[in-house]
């Protein structure tokens, strides 16, 4: 690889200096650039895992202290809507993974179409979540002054619903950020911004989207599926 001591800005006069388009001058190869981007994204995602981990830990403590309140509260959630949303989110992870594959193989238009599909599935998830939240407000299952719970141990049922809103709310916030990112990446992919050598932003967005799916994979059984028998 030719020296890049000339300090040429990213992508400018690339061929002339023996450095390909989309390869930043501080990287020796596309492979190294991609590995760095992947490692950086994963480092961020690990902080996210620990961030959500605190809430999962709080959930574990309170569920072990007040199992009856958690069981009764969990039974008020709609298992149908929860399962539907799980399927929708996993499907969106598939379309996202296929979009990244489209980027890997240099098919920008295909990637853009799959990203739009991902964006639509993500929005469906949020709309269903919105209906679920609405039902909680109608039933007075939102913690606070107007909280009312028919089951046993209403005091600690509030703990379940506090964690329910915190965890699903934080997850939904990540979904909103993800949808904005996916929309941006779709527009860039359609314009041909991603090559098979450098589609690192697309790949990183994909990692973020899959992470949001991972959080839901644990939230769904822990919130919706406590002792349904």
């Amino acid at each position, binding site marked *: 690889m030719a020296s890049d001591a000339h300090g040429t800005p990213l992508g400018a006069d690339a061929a002339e200096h023996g450095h390909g388009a989309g390869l930043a001058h501080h990287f020796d190869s596309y492979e190294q650039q991609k590995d760095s981007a992947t*490692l950086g994204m994963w480092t961020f995602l690990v902080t996210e895992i620990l961030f959500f981990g605190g809430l999962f830990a709080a959930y*574990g403590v309170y569920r*072990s202290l007040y199992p009856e309140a958690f069981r009764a509260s969990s039974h008020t959630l709609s298992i149908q809507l929860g399962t539907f949303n799980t399927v929708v989110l*996993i499907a969106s992870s598939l379309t996202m993974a296929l979009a990244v*594959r489209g980027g890997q193989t240099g098919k920008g238009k295909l990637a853009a179409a799959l990203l739009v599909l991902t964006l639509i599935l993500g929005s469906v998830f949020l709309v269903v979540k919105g209906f679920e939240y609405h039902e909680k407000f109608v039933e007075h299952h939102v913690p606070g002054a107007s909280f009312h719970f028919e089951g046993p141990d209403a005091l600690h049922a509030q703990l379940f619903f506090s964690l329910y809103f915190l965890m699903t709310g934080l997850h939904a916030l990540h979904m909103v950020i993800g949808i904005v990112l996916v929309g941006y990446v779709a527009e860039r992919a359609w314009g041909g911004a991603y090559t098979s050598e450098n589609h690192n932003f697309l790949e990183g967005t994909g990692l973020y989207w899959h992470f949001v799916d991972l959080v839901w*994979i644990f939230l769904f*059984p822990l919130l919706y599926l406590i002792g349904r*028998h």
Partner: protein
Amino acid sequence: MPAHVQPLKVYFGVFLALMAFTALTVSAAFVNLGPANTFVALGIAAAKATLVILYFMHVKGNTKLVPVVILSGLFFLFLLFLFLAADYGTRGWLGVPGR
């Protein structure tokens, strides 16, 4: 075709496995397994997460540094759960109220 491109059948296969695990975890919740219900649910979730991480997030076939970063993060998560369990799990063992 550049290196590290997985065949399409891998993506669809993983998707079908994730769907099957989802069906399994929902049906398992309706069977009374006692305290094992929670562990079955968490085990299935962990299996689903592993599939997503290895194949959708391309950790399989990527630089080995990535699993090191992930496992170090999970190690600290494990410490958080371990010490919380050691605390809340042993309360009352001294026979002193509130200790």
